[in-house]
């Protein structure tokens, strides 16, 4: 059923089944658009920075703008040390999510970030990076992350429990935020687009009225472009804030 709003999220294999033992590595439409997203982001940066002119052209301005935008964000959220250690990681995450979201805005294109397995993989990558780097850099002092200073002892035990719960729910909210925003946005678009033929098929005055859901679809499309950028930015910003905890665990 092509009007089914869930249909756009189906994963279909586009190659012969590939198996490594128990691991199913079949090339699917999700894999195709992830490869396309990586290719778009890396290809654009390579192509735009190829001249590396002192007076930049239009493409080079965009590439340098994206670079300095993320650079200042990492610097504000994680400090000079965060830039030195994690800037490439955060910039890669941002570019990949942004390219994947933007590719998904084309009609009939698959959106890789609408699959929770993909966002959860990236969120868990950040989560384990925080733990590994935090323990490697601070050792036992990393546990100070859970014990905020300046809290009276009689509520400290309660605050520690809340801090531990909030630390372990981070990868969940990190992954679900991106996934659910993209998923809900694309669902709403599809549902409103489905109203247009429904009203047009009703005949009579409804044919003229079908312009209303069409206008709403256009407006929602503009909103979705904002969401596509904002969620990539939010994902990168939260990554910086979590990594800052690994570098400076004391509150």
């Amino acid at each position, binding site marked *: 059923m092509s009007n089914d709003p*869930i249909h756009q999220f189906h994963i279909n294999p586009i190659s012969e089944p590939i198996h490594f033992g128990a691991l199913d590595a079949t090339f699917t439409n999700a894999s195709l658009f992830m490869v396309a997203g990586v290719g778009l982001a890396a290809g654009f940066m390579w192509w735009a920075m190829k001249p590396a002119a002192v007076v930049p052209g239009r493409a080079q301005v965009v590439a340098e703008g994206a670079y300095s935008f993320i650079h200042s*964000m990492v610097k*504000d*959220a994680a400090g000079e040390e965060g830039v030195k250690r994690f800037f490439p990681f955060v910039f890669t995450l941002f570019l990949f999510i942004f390219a994947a979201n933007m590719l998904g805005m084309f009609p009939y294109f698959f959106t890789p970030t609408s699959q929770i397995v993909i966002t959860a993989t990236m969120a868990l990558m950040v989560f384990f990076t925080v733990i590994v780097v935090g323990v490697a850099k601070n050792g036992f002092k990393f546990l100070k992350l859970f014990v905020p200073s300046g809290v009276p002892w009689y509520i400290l035990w309660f605050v520690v429990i809340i801090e531990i719960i909030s630390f372990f729910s981070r990868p969940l*909210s990190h992954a*679900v*935020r991106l996934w*659910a*925003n993209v*998923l*809900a946005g694309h669902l709403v678009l599809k549902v409103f687009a489905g109203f247009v033929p429904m009203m047009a098929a009703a005949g009579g005055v409804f044919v003229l009225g079908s312009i209303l859901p069409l206008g709403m679809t256009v407006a929602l499309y503009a909103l979705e472009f904002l969401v596509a950028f*904002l969620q990539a*930015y*939010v994902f990168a*910003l*939260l990554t910086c*804030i979590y990594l800052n905890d690994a570098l400076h665990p004391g509150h």
Partner: protein
Amino acid sequence: MDVEAAKMIGAGIACIGMGGAGIGVGIIFGNFLQGALRNPSEAPKQFGNLIFGFAVTEALGIFSLLIALLLMFT
């Protein structure tokens, strides 16, 4: 009651939680605008904090949407 019907009602009830997230996001942006209009020169520096507060608040609404989607499609 039919289980399918109960699931749909539950999904509807779960969406009430998104209203709370909506109020929270409104408070964040409203207060940001208040502060930004009082001191416009300092406002761009707080953009990261604004988005961080928005993201953390929005997460709770997204969780209730997730529950609704799980109820409807599983």
